């Protein structure tokens, strides 16, 4: 009995089917880069998340009769065009729905898809605050980490490199902050 338990514990890792195994970082990196290139070739825009979220939020606001079209951000022709040509299932939304679906498929295959509840109010507050800062910073810098970092650096635009450098500095400050919050 003891031997069997030891054996099953030891071989359970190797008994994972091939569609359940973790990938090494470089394999995922290659996959993400390839998918981003194909996306750029097909739709003309690299992967971006915060711009999609912004446009969807604006549409939600418009449903409540606010009028964000007058804001400076949307005076720019590119952004105004995005707003005009918006339909609920625009290109950015489809890609990001696909991303979530891809994660769901991968998680279900690995058996890791289950609701995970939060533990304390502090987690919610940290999540809301962190999310707010991320969204705010993403709009100021014209992109989030997928759009400005992955997309901007790959597009050989200097704003991506600036984004990388100052995100690093912000991460240093944020790490010190969170160590202080956790204590």
């Amino acid at each position, binding site marked *: 009995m003891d031997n069997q338990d030891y054996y099953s514990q030891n071989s359970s890792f190797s008994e994972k089917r091939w569609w359940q195994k973790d990938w090494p970082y470089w394999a995922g990196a290659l996959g993400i880069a390839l998918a981003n290139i194909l996306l750029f070739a097909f739709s003309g825009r690299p992967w971006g998340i915060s711009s999609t979220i912004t446009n969807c939020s604006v549409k939600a606001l418009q449903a409540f009769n606010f009028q964000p079209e007058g804001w400076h951000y949307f005076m720019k022709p590119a952004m105004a065009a995005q707003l005009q040509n918006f339909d609920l299932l625009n290109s950015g939304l*489809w890609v990001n*729905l696909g991303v979530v679906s891809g994660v769901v498929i991968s998680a279900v295959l690995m058996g890791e898809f289950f609701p995970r509840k939060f533990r304390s109010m502090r987690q919610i507050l940290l999540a809301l605050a962190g999310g*707010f800062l*991320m*969204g705010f910073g993403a709009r100021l810098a014209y992109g989030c980490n997928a759009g400005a970092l992955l997309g901007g650096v790959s597009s050989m635009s200097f704003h991506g490199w600036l984004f990388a450098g100052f995100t690093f*500095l912000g991460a240093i400050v944020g790490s010190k902050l969170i160590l202080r919050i956790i204590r």
Partner: protein
Amino acid sequence: MKTLIKLRSASFLAFAERFILLITPAKMGIAAIGMLVLWAAFQSAWDNLVLWLLGALLGFCLHRARFCLAAAFRDAVLFRDISLSKAMIIIFFVSTIGFAFIQFRAYSLGLPIPGNIHPIGFHTVIGAFIFGVGMVLAGGCVCSMLARLGEGYVLALFILLGIMAGSLAGAYNVGWWEATIGSIKPVFFPDYLGWAGGITLQFLALGLLYLLCARIERKRL
């Protein structure tokens, strides 16, 4: 004959029981959502289906390799662990090559150059800094938030809510920054150095980034 029927029904029951246990309600819900999405995509246009599939490839690789750009920065800072940072550099390297092909093709056809090329200004610096702080506070970057949504973390919904609110506030605020401090027009490397020069600069910068990561790791010991 009776025993045969009993045996058959017993094995059928066993099979049915295994089947029902295997297909939990969660999986049924997921399959239903998946079929709905595919049906909607097929209804409107094949384009959307391709976009969805490419997104699924992105999401699959994101989750399977446990990728997080926030962790790339955070681990390098806190634990001097640069494995994710190196993977990030691999993404930059491969994407640059692919994007450069697409951009050069557009340029040689006389079309405007596609890509995420945005204006630069003080707002970029401030925005990136704030993004870095928020990234560590929220425990993940924006793509990690999508990954956690897919894994079932309820907390990710709150991060999403925060991002929605913050995006609106930021979109409102960026006008002030650009009006007050101003911003310069986008800096696209090949504009200033030509295509060969721009790509060389990009690779040099990536090499420097890799050296920086290696230096961070070495200081650990």
